[in-house]
């Protein structure tokens, strides 16, 4: 009798938690819908692209415990393929260009993943970094990337051949839709049985193996999903800024996405969203101030402070606070 009581209580608590989450997401979507009337749409789109990028990265680090130091490669692959296709074939509609960029990153993610999951921990980070650096050199040398100059003037085109994306407002809603889809995919992945196994691998991989899970396959699939979504973010970003450049492929970019995730909260769904908004906002503010040249020093200092005394990140600390005071 007592048992069924507790289980009803747990079920009720879960139901109310789900309702709270539902309300939270609904509120965020409403906020996203009205935001372009309050702030500059291009700035918001930049945040959305990087929030998707960081969320994709966080799927790997936060939920599978794999630290990839080479996610810039996927962002850049998506950006370059989409940019190249849209500028070369004027008839191509933007959603197909983005799809192609995303698929390119999926393929690259599969190749990188197969190699990188052969080692663990610190080696995994070094391997992904080295592979991404190799891609950086390939991008410099390939004819289709425009080398040091990058690709400029990528046309935004017409969505499905019907709706023009020329105006920033129209494009904003498209980017917002892409973000919501990407975020929903991550949310579903994390809460699915697949996501539970990923968390088990993160906590204790030998245990997961001994329970009969083929952990390599799980890690590989997570890696591919993460790479694909990072590519989607890059492809969308190309459409926003109408350019794809080497900056996307540089190891600084791989570091930045780690910082966004760490600052917002590793392993929380909303953390990367908060972290990327803060980092992009900070970069934006600094670029207009006399401190503009010190961006990388400031980002480096935030890195050090986060690691030393703020490892759960903003959302993580908030969650702790709520748990301590309201339960």
């Amino acid at each position, binding site marked *: 009798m007592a048992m069924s009581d507790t289980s009803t209580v747990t079920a009720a608590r879960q139901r109310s938690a789900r309702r709270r989450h539902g309300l939270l997401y609904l509120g965020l979507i409403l906020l996203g819908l009205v935001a372009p009337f309050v702030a500059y749409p291009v700035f918001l789109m930049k945040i959305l692209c990087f929030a998707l990028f960081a969320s994709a990265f966080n799927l790997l680090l936060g939920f599978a415990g794999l*630290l990839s130091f080479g996610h810039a490669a996927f962002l850049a692959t998506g950006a370059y393929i989409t940019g190249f296709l849209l500028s070369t074939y004027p008839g191509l509609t933007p959603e197909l260009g983005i799809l192609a960029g995303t698929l390119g990153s999926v393929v690259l993610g599969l190749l990188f993943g197969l*190699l990188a999951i*052969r*080692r*663990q*921990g*610190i*080696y995994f*980070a*070094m*391997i992904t*970094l*080295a*592979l991404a*650096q*190799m891609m950086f*050199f*390939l991008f410099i*040398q390939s004819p289709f990337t425009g080398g040091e100059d990058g690709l400029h003037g990528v046309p935004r085109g017409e969505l499905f051949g019907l709706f023009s994306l020329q105006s920033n407002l129209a494009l904003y809603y498209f980017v917002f839709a892409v973000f919501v889809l990407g975020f929903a995919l991550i949310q579903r992945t994390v809460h699915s049985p697949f996501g539970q196994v990923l968390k088990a691998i993160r906590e204790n991989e030998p245990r997961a193996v001994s329970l009969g899970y083929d952990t390599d396959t799980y890690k590989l699939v997570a890696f591919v999903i993460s790479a694909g979504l990072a590519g989607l973010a890059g492809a969308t970003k190309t459409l926003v800024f109408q350019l794809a450049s080497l900056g996307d492929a540089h*190891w600084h970019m791989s*570091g930045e996405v*780690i910082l966004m995730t*760490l600052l917002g909260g590793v392993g929380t769904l909303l953390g990367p969203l908060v972290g990327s908004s803060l980092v992009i906002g900070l970069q934006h503010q600094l670029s207009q101030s006399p401190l503009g*040249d*010190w*961006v*990388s*020093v400031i*980002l*480096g*200092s*935030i*890195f*050090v402070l*986060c*690691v*030393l005394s703020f*490892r759960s990140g903003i959302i993580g600390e908030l969650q702790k606070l709520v748990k301590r005071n309201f339960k």
Partner: protein
Amino acid sequence: MTTIFGIPLMVLFGQLLLGLINGAFYALLSLGLAVIFGLLKVINFAHGAQYMLGAFAALLGLEYLGLDYWLALLVVPLVVGALGILIERVLLRRIQHIDHLYGLLLTFGLALIFEGTLVNLFGVSGSSYPVPEALAGGFNLGFMFLPTYRAWVLVAALAVCLFTWFMIERTRLGAYLRAGTENPRLMQAFGVNVPLLVTLTYGFGVALAAFAGVLAAPIYPVSPTMGSSLLIVVFAVVVIGGMGSILGAILTGLAMGLIEGLTKVFYPEAANTVIFLVMIMVLMLRPAGLFGKEA
């Protein structure tokens, strides 16, 4: 002129020498990374920045203090090594008990800080450091011209590598270090001051990087970004060799330099990427690395 596969022998030997010198730097840097990793289990992402600091300290010492090359070779590693000791005591020590990936992130942040600060103070374009007089000029070996300084770099780098190997494998202090790598708590129980050992090890690894920086100053442009791109290649070298063995790290470094030199002769387009390709092959065939012990 003698040629081999249509390549003039002069060119081939010249590139092989350049490759060997690059390899000597890969060896010095991957050695430092391996020594630090052994005891701290942390990959020192600031290694490239510390190498760069070594080169800059030599340059600034010459410009403002009149510190000559030979003194710089001695003083700079001590100064930068002391900075390393400070970093270990103040920062790394606090995160020793948590996941070692945080050590990677912390040192990455430090690398950004060092590099960004120097970019602001000195700009990104490189300055050159004069070759010391005693080492100017070169020998004509008949089949190629060998600049004296480059010969010296090779000799000095190899000597320091072998000295490090000797220290670790053949002395009492090295035995403590190896034992600490295996089981630090047991060492502590035996009365060895392990925290001190850890601090000194990090300081020594950093000093090695700074020494490499001073050696590099007269042949590579001294710029704030000189360390970071080199470090990523060194990471690939470390993955290829595995960090289990000191001699392995040295040999892998030299071999990768040679392979890079050969690629520059026969297929220059791939010179930047060949080490990464070797890394991919090693990962497919022998994932633990050529000299690695565990997967």
